[in-house]
C-alpha cells in the first residue's frame, strides 16, 4: 500500500491566501519529507488552519502552488484526498451514531468492504482504547475520548499523510499524552504528519521540524533544537551544600549570578555537552562540592518571544 514517493510528501511555493483585505498567508515555501513530523506553530489567527484547509483541498489558495504526495492540490484534488487524512480543530464525528458506527461509516466511504470495514473499526477501537465505548454515542464520551474517535476515523483509510489541526487543544494533560503517543505510533509506521499547535512543548515533543508562523510568514524554521539555539537564555543551575563552597565557586566563575539564600549559582551556558564538560571540570578541579545540578535549555516559548517579541501563549483575537 505504502509506496515511497519520489519527491517530498508536502511542498508549497509562494503560497498566498487572503480573506478580504486581511492577508493570512503571505508567500509560504515549505518542503516536508515523507515520514517526518512537521509542526506549524503560531498563535490563534496566525493562519495555521488556513494552511491545513488549503493543503487538504477544502479551500483554494489565491496564489502560489501546493502539492501533496506529488499531486497539485488545486488541479488534482481527488488524488490528494485519496492519500490524506484530516482531523480538524473541531470535532467531526456523527453525534447520533455510535463510535463503532462512525468508524464503519468511514470504512464504507473508503470502500473497504463489509467484513474488512468491521474488522478495521474494531481494530481501531481497541487501538484507541475505545473498545468499551464503541457501542455508545459520542455524547457519552469525554473530550479526550471524542478526540481519539475523531483521530481513529481519520485513520480508517490508512492515509499516508495526516493533517492534525491543533489535535490537543482543550484536552487534559493525560489525554494530550495519549494523543502524542498515537502520533508517535503513526510516525513509526512511516506516516507523514503535518501538525499545527499553539503549544510549544507539543512541537518540541513531536516534531522533526518546526516552522513559526506569524502574520502570514514563517518567522523561523528548523529543528526544535536549532530554534532553541537561536535564542540566549540557556543556563546551568548549580546548587551547593554550604555558603563557603558557593562563595568559592562565585570567585571561580566571575560571570555567574549567585543566590545566597538558595545556595545556587546560575551559569550562562548553551547546554551543549562540550561546554558542560568544561564547566564541570573546572568545578571538580577546584575541589568544590556540588549538591545538585539542573540544565535549563530555552524552550520554544523563549524562541517565540525572541522572534516575534510576544510570548507564544498569548492569544491573539482572530481577525
Amino acid at each position, binding site marked *: 500500500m505504502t509506496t515511497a514517493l519520489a519527491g517530498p510528501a508536502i511542498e508549497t511555493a509562494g503560497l498566498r491566501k487572503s480573506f478580504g483585505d486581511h492577508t493570512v498567508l503571505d508567500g509560504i515555501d515549505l518542503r516536508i519529507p515523507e515520514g517526518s513530523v512537521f509542526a506549524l506553530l503560531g498563535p490563534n489567527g496566525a493562519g495555521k488552519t488556513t494552511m491545513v484547509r488549503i493543503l487538504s*483541498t*477544502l*479551500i483554494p489558495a489565491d496564489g502560489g502552488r501546493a502539492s501533496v504526495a506529488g499531486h497539485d492540490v488545486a488541479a488534482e484534488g*481527488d488524488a490528494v*484526498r485519496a492519500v490524506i487524512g484530516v482531523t480538524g480543530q473541531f470535532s467531526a464525528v456523527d453525534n447520533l451514531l455510535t463510535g463503532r458506527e462512525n468508524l464503519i*461509516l468511514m470504512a*464504507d466511504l473508503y470502500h473497504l468492504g463489509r467484513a474488512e470495514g468491521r474488522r478495521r473499526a474494531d481494530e481501531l477501537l481497541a487501538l484507541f482504547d475505545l473498545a468499551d465505548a464503541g457501542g455508545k454515542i459520542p455524547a457519552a464520551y469525554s473530550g479526550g475520548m471524542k478526540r481519539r474517535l475523531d483521530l481513529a476515523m481519520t485513520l480508517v483509510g490508512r492515509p499516508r499523510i495526516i493533517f492534525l489541526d491543533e489535535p490537543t487543544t482543550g484536552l487534559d494533560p493525560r489525554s494530550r499524552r495519549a494523543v502524542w503517543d498515537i502520533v508517535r505510533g503513526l510516525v513509526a509506521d512511516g506516516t507523514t504528519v503535518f501538525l499545527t499547535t499553539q503549544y510549544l512543548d507539543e512541537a518540541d515533543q513531536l516534531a522533526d521540524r518546526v516552522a513559526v508562523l506569524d502574520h502570514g510568514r514563517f518567522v523561523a524554521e528548523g529543528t526544535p533544537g536549532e530554534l532553541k539555539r537561536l535564542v540566549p537564555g540557556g543556563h546551568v543551575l548549580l546548587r551547593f551544600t554550604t555558603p563557603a563552597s558557593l562563595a568559592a565557586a562565585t570567585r571561580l566563575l566571575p560571570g555567574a549570578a549567585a543566590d545566597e539564600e538558595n545556595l545556587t549559582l546560575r551559569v550562562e551556558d548553551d547546554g551543549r555537552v562540550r561546554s558542560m564538560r568544561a564547566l564541570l571540570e573546572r568545578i571538580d578541579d577546584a575541589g568544590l562540592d556540588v549538591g545538585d545540578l539542573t540544565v535549563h535549555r530555552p524552550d520554544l516559548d523563549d524562541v517565540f518571544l525572541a522572534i516575534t517579541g510576544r510570548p507564544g501563549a498569548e492569544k491573539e483575537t482572530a481577525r
Partner: protein
Amino acid sequence: MSHAITDSATMLRRNLRRALRYPGLTVSMLAMPVLLMLLFVYVLGGALGGGIGGDIRYVDYLTPGIALMTITTSTMTAAIGVCSDLTEGIIARFRTMPISPNAVLTGRVVDSMIQTLLSVALVIAAATLMGFRPTATFPEWLAATGLVVLLTFGVTWLAIAMGLLSKNPEGASNIVMPLAYLPFLGSAFVPPDSMSGGLRWFAEHQPFTPIIETLRGLLLGTGIGTSGYWAVGWCLAMTVGGYLWARSTFRKRALEA
C-alpha cells in the same frame, strides 16, 4: 464517478439510521398530518364542508390537500438534517475524503423522499379509514403517484438549499416554515373563490394550487383543465431551481473559513 451510487447509498444508510435511532422528529412529522386530518374532518369539517360547494364530500376534498401539506412539512427533516451536518463539522471531514461530492446531498434527498412518501401513504390510509373514497383508475393512481414523487423531489431540494443557508438547526426549521404552510393559502382546505380580494388572487396563482387541483382531479375526477401543465411546470421549476440553489449554497458554505 464510479462510486457516486455506493457513496450516496452509504449516506442514505447513515441518515436512515439516525432517523431510526432518534425517531422523535420522524414520528412527529408522520403524526402531524394525521392529526390535521382528524381536526379538519371531525372538528372543522362540518362547518367547512357546507361551504365548499359542489357535490364533493369534505373528506374527499381535503385529503389531496393534506397529502400535499404532508409533503411540504416533511421537508423540515431534510432542512434540519443538512444544517446539523454542517454545524457538526462532519461535512468538512467528508470533503477531505475521496468520495463523490454530490453523495452528501443525494443521500439526504433520497432519505427525505423515503420518509415523506411513507408519510403520504400513511395519511392516505388514515383518510381512507375516515371515509376518503377516491374514484381514480389505475393509470390515474399512477399519474397521481408520479406527481407526488416529482413534487417531493422539488420541495426537498428547495428545503435542502434553505437548510444549507441556515446557521443552526432551529433556523433551518424556521426558514422552511413558509414553504411548509404555503398550501394553507391555496386550495388545500377550502376553494380559493371562498377567499377575499388579494388573498383569493394569491391562492389562485400560487404554485401549490394547480398541484392540489391536479391531484384532486386525478384521484376524484374533478376537473383538471390547464392545472396539470402548471403543476408539472412548477414541480420541475422547484426541482431545477432547488437543485442549483442547494449546490451553489453547499459550495459557498463549504468554503467558509
